[in-house]
């Protein structure tokens, strides 16, 4: 689960990790009201206003409605004009940002609506670094990844200058050890106060990753200030969905408006659904088979409309919900149900399909391929239902049949 920058910073600050002072705002008035206390608290007349969306690249991103406005804006009007001038500029920018559509390299051309802003104190930046804690699958451990190339996309750094990426493995029994943090500090070229500040920062960050079950914490950039302190200028955090049960406070940070409504509905029903751009809807059990079904549709010349894994132990109700989600996509011209039952029993799937069709109707062709546990019973339920279901013998056969019927 992704959370917003301001939420991530809240979680970091609560664990003693240095972040700039800031306030979230969902209205122009809230944004304006944040300016005075921020300037008075930090003693810095510069404030920064950042769009809060679940996508990166905001600094270079621009708004569809006004391409001159960026996703991150530094407001310097307060240097000469005082708090009132800063407030006026914040009002102007907030009006242009809130409710409008920010397009960045990561949002795709359709962009994302900005519903929240984060107003933050300006920071005196001496250096920009990169820091992240993430899973290293090869070692089955979290690692700290760091680089002197702060502010850059880390994938690009990894590709062009892999020697600039530093790593330290975190042993789950010990956490990140002091010498490991010290090695990173030295390799990043830090010394004195900055090195000391960094060592505390990165060790706390490693502990936080373990405590909060994060898939990823990315601080890009991590900045060294003019007076030798390190602090998280940006923060990106994603939490392991499977661990949310033990972090109700973090689970409550979920912002469903950032997610596809159909995907939210599926998730709440315990289904794995991902919307795609094609015309053939698929309902499959098992993640691997669901992916392979999409691949096969593509291989025979079609385009999948979605990924939908109903999971290993789906109920008839879940199958019905899955069916409803697929049929509510207007682009869908045909549906392919592909089930190979293990835990999943074919009779349960068949019952779910019949119930779904009876409830929501069926206006597009339906091809069903069933195999596995209780397959005879499943086929009997479908045959006796009187529904216009075309049956298929194999995955490929089913993909070819639905493509023919849908075109």
């Amino acid at each position, binding site marked *: 689960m992704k959370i917003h920058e301001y939420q991530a910073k809240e979680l970091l600050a609560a664990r003693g990790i240095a972040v700039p002072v800031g306030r979230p705002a969902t209205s122009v008035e809230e944004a304006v009201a944040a300016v005075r206390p921020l300037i008075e608290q930090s003693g810095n007349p510069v404030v920064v206003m950042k769009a809060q969306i679940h996508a990166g690249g905001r600094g270079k991103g621009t708004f569809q409605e006004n391409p001159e406005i960026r996703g991150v804006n530094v407001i310097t009007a307060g240097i000469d004009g005082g708090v009132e001038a800063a407030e006026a500029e914040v009002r102007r920018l907030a009006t242009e940002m809130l409710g409008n559509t920010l397009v960045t390299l990561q949002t795709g051309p359709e962009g994302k609506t900005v519903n929240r802003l984060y107003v933050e104190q300006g920071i005196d930046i001496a250096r920009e670094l990169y820091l992240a804690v993430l*899973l290293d*699958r*090869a070692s*089955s*451990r*979290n690692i700290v990844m760091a680089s002197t190339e702060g502010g850059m996309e*880390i*994938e690009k750094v*990894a*590709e062009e200058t892999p020697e600039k990426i530093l790593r330290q493995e975190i*042993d*789950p*029994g010990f956490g990140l050890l002091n010498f490991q943090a010290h090695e990173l500090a030295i390799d990043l070229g830090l010394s004195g106060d900055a090195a000391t500040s960094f060592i505390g920062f990165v060790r706390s960050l490693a502990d936080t990753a*373990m405590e909060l*079950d994060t*898939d990823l914490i990315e601080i890009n950039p991590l900045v060294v200030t003019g007076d030798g302190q390190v602090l998280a200028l940006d923060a990106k955090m994603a939490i*392991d*969905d*499977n*661990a949310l*049960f*033990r972090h109700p406070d973090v689970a409550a940070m979920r912002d469903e408006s950032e997610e596809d409504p159909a995907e939210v509905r599926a998730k709440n029903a315990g289904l*794995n659904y*991902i919307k*795609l751009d094609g015309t053939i809807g698929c309902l*499959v*059990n*098992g*993640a*691997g*088979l*669901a*992916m*392979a079904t*999409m*691949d*096969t*549709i*593509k*291989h*025979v010349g079609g385009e*999948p409309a979605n*990924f939908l*894994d109903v*999971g*290993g*132990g789906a109920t008839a109700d879940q199958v019905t919900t899955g069916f409803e989600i697929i049929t509510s996509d207007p682009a869908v011209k045909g549906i392919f149900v592909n089930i*190979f*039952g*293990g*835990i999943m029993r074919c009779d349960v799937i068949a019952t779910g399909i019949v119930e779904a069709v009876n409830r929501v109707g069926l206006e597009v062709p339906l091809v069903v391929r069933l*195999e*596995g*546990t209780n397959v005879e019973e499943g086929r009997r339920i479908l045959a006796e239902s009187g529904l216009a279901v075309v049956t298929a013998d*194999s*995955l*490929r*056969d089913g*993909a070819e049949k639905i493509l023919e019927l849908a075109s």
Partner: protein
Amino acid sequence: MSILIDSSTKVLVQGLGKTGQFHTDKAIAYGTNMVGAVHPSRAGETFTFQGETDHSGVPGRPDTYEVDLPVYATVRQAVEETGATVSVVYVPPPFAADAIMEAAAAGIELVIAITEGIPVADMIVAKRYLQGTDTRLVGPNCPGVITPGECKIGIMPGYIHQRGKIGVVSRSGTLTYEAVHQLTQLGLGQTTAVGIGGDPVNGTNFVDVLQMFEADPETEGVIMIGEIGGSAEEEAAEFVKSMSKPVAGFIAGTTAPPGKRMGHAGAIVSGGSGTAEAKIAAMQAAGIVVADTPSEMGEAMAKALG
């Protein structure tokens, strides 16, 4: 011969909830030697499993079965009383990693974790704990392991299997069933089918299983089924170069959009790494016959066998 499990394997089940009961019953029907269960809140009870034998399983068994399974509070007690060497974990996600570690501490040689949805951090700890023990973990988030006609541990439908000469190893449950079904239809059959699971942190990997199949005299060829995410398939392809036996394969996720988790926690293309294209290229470079669609996995194996 086979790998990992055979007719002499004594099996414990950890977690006798609804799912655990359902699949324990199916395993016994198949002929698996289930010797006990671990379920603290039901310790001291005896569970009776009875029904009609699955004749696709162990040959020569009577048409019906009735097995009384003793339930223990801890794995240690269960091992002491039954001599079990293998356990299968159906414990719910919040407690599953602990169950795996408990099994290792009790000296279980092979833990097969079926549970889906275990927090990654828990598996990082479990994997660290298993280092330095003699316990092998298969899974989690996997269908289990089956040696057709001898022993079925997990959630796979038994009747699609047939004893034969092909080893199967896969990150995906349902794609394993596809491959097995095709091998059975082609008359090639299976020695053992191993699901290594769809999680980013798992126990046994492709290379471990490929090594075992390479050393197993009965196995004449191997199908490996991978998917997007991580680099386990690339490492496996590197190992296949040193194998004497032919290998066929399939990779799921060619059409998966980057940055999205495709159902399995481990199935994600991130930062341009873990793509299906890269895996297929590495496998082909190692001489693996890669099927275009899952419907052709069996044929790809037949082709690889020559």
